[in-house]
């Protein structure tokens, strides 16, 4: 039995009724009187010089109220392209009209003259000197050149710059001219131990190159915002966003407007997964159109625009090498990764280090580069960068296990770090349920006595992630009827409002139904970090705890006054304060105390919690899939998909299961079906017909297994839940397919044609 009565329970969510009756207000449901409809004018080429933009025809169309281009951005910050476009769909102008169809017609009437330039879409092509340049030369040295240059620099401090040694190194450097990479947006390098030595001591060394495609978060609600600028200059923005406070500062910074002049109202969010933090995608254009027209304006993307100008997850190419002894000790791992960051920098290249996984690897070296291509920029998608790196890492582990003849689960268990172990290139290991989680999934899936018919196979993989943490504030008030009301400013993301409510009910010892929660806008609510990075339950849960404890202090103070006894003799239980030693029992309810408080010097019961940072603890997701592959058609059917996760403590197990199930299916989709495809002129599959996401028909039930190894600083031990479940699935699926048909697919997604081709290369006759 749990020691708690509200936390740890599967309770219905606080927003249940509004979500099942259509009452919840999402971004596009906001419709202020006099609202105009905005439309963004987009580039029709993936790389081109802009010769002219002519809005005169569009201006004449009846119903058009405002047209804006970069000339209308007083701060000069880039909102629209002016002289050059870098991807298909890049914004060039925007229109506001009285009707959405008129806005669209007007957008079509804006004439743009282009001078088309050569396009580069592939990272491996883009780093070559022959590639078209997106932002000047932007060159960086590859790993060998870096190493040699570092040696030269070190030597130069000791010997004459003309010495033989230095000259030899310089000649060596010359040999690596192909390692001058072009179109580089960023780089990241990490090293611990000596990988060369590690490989030399290894009995088995496996090396492969992994290709992971760019995928879209495909939250079901496309980007939308409604902006209204009044005559005093005050701007109100209804934004579908994960972070209203970040949007407020983003708009202020982009347009040079004081922060206090902007109020952002976060609307119910139709999914985000990391992709809903962008400021200029719809919010800034809506504000500019409203300022120019003097009317509220809604800018809402279509699904097609989402694919062209959303900020999806970066694809990447990872060359990975791993060495191990024949008795199963991993000795060294080295990665070289090229991340496709699109037209701007920002791909999660730092996540390449996740190839180390949760294993003791004494020698590790990671070199990662962000590479420009003619695509939109990228953003976070559920554990940004981790699924890609872990796909490479966990695929390769299975290949090693196979070569040394060891069970893949046992091989992982044997190499997993334990509490106190050094984390390669990063501190020491806290207590995390790595082994517990992997063992739990193996047991639940029936791994140890698994059976497989012909063309069936089992795959396992694990993925780790550590939740973020950020500032937040919560108020809680207790009312005369004994109920409590929470006030805060963080966006609900898959049930976080519910978790906050459960925590406050738990501490105030009142029924869950008697606690209500309300979100403020950025004008009214205390500052709150964005709802992404699995931060909300960790951050806001801690914040809520502090607020409830603060309220409890005041409650006990009031009760001590009222009952004329020392606070030490008092206990808050079942919504009332009891005198512990009283016989006959003596108590006073929260409602009575709240009523009494109104006429006291100290005043009403208001608890305040504010919190910014505590170290968080890694979480592990472990998954097992059983698949059946049809060798003739290449189709893969999932027979079983089991996902376990160390969540620290499940404040609402139903919500936690939902996160595990949803994240796992997104991982499955990345492995098996999703891929943004690019042709000579940009994205070629901007819709659900050509960009297939899974439906209920594609999958069986996902079995989730909750493991609870408490996080020292999490509320009740909870840790971030939302991101980990997507991290291992890509490799889980690839490993299962490999087990079924003996074909290692290193290029995602694992579409049927790839399986058929791979089998053909292996001699299979279709």
């Amino acid at each position, binding site marked *: 039995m749990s020691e708690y009565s509200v936390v740890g329970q599967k309770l*219905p*969510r606080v927003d249940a*009724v509004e*979500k*099942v*009756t*259509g*009452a*919840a*207000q*999402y971004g*596009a*449901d906001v*419709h202020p009187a006099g609202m105009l409809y905005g*439309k*963004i004018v*987009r580039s*029709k080429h993936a790389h081109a010089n802009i010769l002219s933009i002519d809005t005169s025809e569009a201006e004449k169309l009846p119903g058009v109220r405002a047209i804006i281009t970069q000339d209308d951005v007083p701060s000069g910050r880039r909102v629209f392209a002016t002289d050059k476009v870098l991807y298909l*769909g890049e914004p060039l102008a925007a229109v506001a009209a009285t009707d*959405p*169809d008129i806005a*669209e*017609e007007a*957008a079509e009437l804006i004439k743009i003259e282009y001078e088309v330039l050569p396009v580069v879409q592939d990272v491996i092509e883009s780093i070559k000197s022959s590639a078209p340049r997106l932002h000047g030369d932007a060159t960086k040295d590859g790993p060998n050149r870096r190493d040699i240059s570092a040696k030269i620099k070190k030597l130069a401090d000791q010997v004459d710059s003309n010495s033989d040694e230095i000259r030899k190194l310089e000649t060596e450097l010359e040999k690596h001219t192909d390692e001058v990479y072009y179109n580089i947006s960023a780089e990241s390098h990490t090293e611990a131990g000596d990988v060369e030595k590690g490989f030399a001591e290894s009995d088995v060394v496996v090396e492969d190159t992994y290709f992971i495609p760019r995928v879209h978060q495909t*939250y*079901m*609600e*496309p980007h939308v915002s409604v902006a209204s600028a009044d005559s005093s200059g005050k701007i109100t923005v209804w934004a579908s966003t994960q972070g209203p406070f970040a949007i407020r500062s983003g708009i202020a910074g982009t347009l040079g407007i004081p922060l206090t002049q902007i109020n952002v109202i976060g609307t*119910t*969010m*139709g*999914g*985000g*997964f990391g992709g809903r933090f962008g400021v200029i995608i719809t919010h800034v254009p809506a504000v500019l159109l409203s300022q120019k027209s003097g009317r509220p304006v809604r800018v809402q993307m*279509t*699904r*097609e*625009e989402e694919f*062209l100008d959303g900020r999806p997850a970066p694809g990447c190419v990872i060359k990975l090498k791993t060495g191990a002894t024949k008795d199963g000790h991993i000795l060294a791992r080295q990665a070289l990764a090229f991340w496709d960051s699109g037209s701007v920098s920002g791909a999660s290249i730092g996540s390449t280090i996740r190839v180390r996984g949760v294993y003791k690897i004494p020698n590790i070296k990671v070199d990662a580069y962000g590479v420009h291509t003619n695509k939109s920029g990228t953003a976070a998608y559920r554990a940004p960068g981790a699924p890609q790196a872990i796909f490479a890492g966990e695929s390769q582990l299975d290949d090693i296990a196979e070569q040394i003849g060891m069970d893949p689960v046992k091989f992982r268990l044997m190499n997993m770090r334990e509490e106190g172990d050094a984390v390669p290139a990063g501190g020491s290991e806290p207590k995390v349920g790595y082994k517990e989680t992997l063992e739990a999934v193996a047991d639940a899936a029936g791994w140890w006595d698994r059976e497989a018919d012909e063309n069936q196979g089992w795959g396992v993989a694990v993925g780790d992630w550590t939740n973020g943490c950020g500032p937040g504030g919560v108020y809680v008030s207790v009312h005369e009827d004994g109920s409590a009301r929470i006030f805060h400013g963080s966006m609900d993301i*898959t*049930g976080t409002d519910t978790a906050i409510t459960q925590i406050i009910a738990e501490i105030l010892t009142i029924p869950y139904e008697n606690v209500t929660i309300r979100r403020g806008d950025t004008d009214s609510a205390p500052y709150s970090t964005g709802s992404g990075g699995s931060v909300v339950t960790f951050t806001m849960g801690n914040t809520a705890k502090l607020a409830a404890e603060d309220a409890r202090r005041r409650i006990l103070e009031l009760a001590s006054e009222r009952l004329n006894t020392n606070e030490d003799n008092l206990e808050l239980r079942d919504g009332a304060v009891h005198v512990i030693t009283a016989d006959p029992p003596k108590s006073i309810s929260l409602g009575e105390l709240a009523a009494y408080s109104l006429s006291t010097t100290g005043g009403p019961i208001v608890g305040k919690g504010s919190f910014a940072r505590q170290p968080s603890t890694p979480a592990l997701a472990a998954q097992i899939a059983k698949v059946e592959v049809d060798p003739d058609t290449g189709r893969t059917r999932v027979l079983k998909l089991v996902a376990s996760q160390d969540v620290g403590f499940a404040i609402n197990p*139903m919500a936690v*299961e*939902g996160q595990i*199930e*949803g994240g796992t*299916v*997104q991982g499955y989709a990345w492995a098996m079906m999703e891929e943004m495809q690019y042709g000579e002129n940009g994205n070629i599959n901007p*819709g*659900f*017909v050509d960009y297939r*996401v*899974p*439906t*209920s*028909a594609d*999958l069986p*039930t*996902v079995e*989730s297994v909750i493991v609870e190894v408490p996080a020292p600083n999490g509320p009740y031990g909870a840790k971030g839940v939302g991101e980990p479940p997507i991290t291992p699935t890509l490799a889980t699926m690839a490993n299962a397919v490999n087990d079924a048909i003996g074909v290692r697919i290193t290029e995602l997604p694992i579409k049927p044609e790839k399986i058929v081709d791979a089998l053909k290369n292996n001699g299979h006759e279709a």
Partner: protein
Amino acid sequence: MARSTTSFGLQATPKHPVSLTVNGDEHDLLIEPRKTLLAVLRDTIGLTGTKEGCSTGDCGACTVIVDGKAVTSCMVLGVTASGKEITTIEGLASDGELHPIQQAFIDTGGYQCGFCTPGFIMASKALVDENPDRTEEEFRHALGGNICRCTGYTKILEAVLQAAEEIRTIS
């Protein structure tokens, strides 16, 4: 490119008189022939519970029930729905009582962000009304026109099966 969410790319033409019965209420409207039923419901009548996820008939977020059949309202022109009986998510609960399907989505945690939920509930209602005896596998295939990006479908299927069971026992 970036085709409109509300029209079929048709040019503006004179408005047509249209009578719709939505959730039992009659609406006599004048609408442009290019407006979809989705646009009429959301923008003209102001019933925003029905969602727009793709505008191309591929996600099911806009599902409503027209004369007993589930349809994606982004693929229907408003004028062609004249004279028809339409039920939207707002019309499902009666006398303050949630419909068993709505209740089942709450009980099982069959929604997260909730954006796909009105469409899923309407699609499920049409399926359950038609035949509540489907197996899980049959429901999985029958709901294949609706996309949910959050739940991974496991809890949605639980909800639909729970509701089907309940409706079987009442009827």
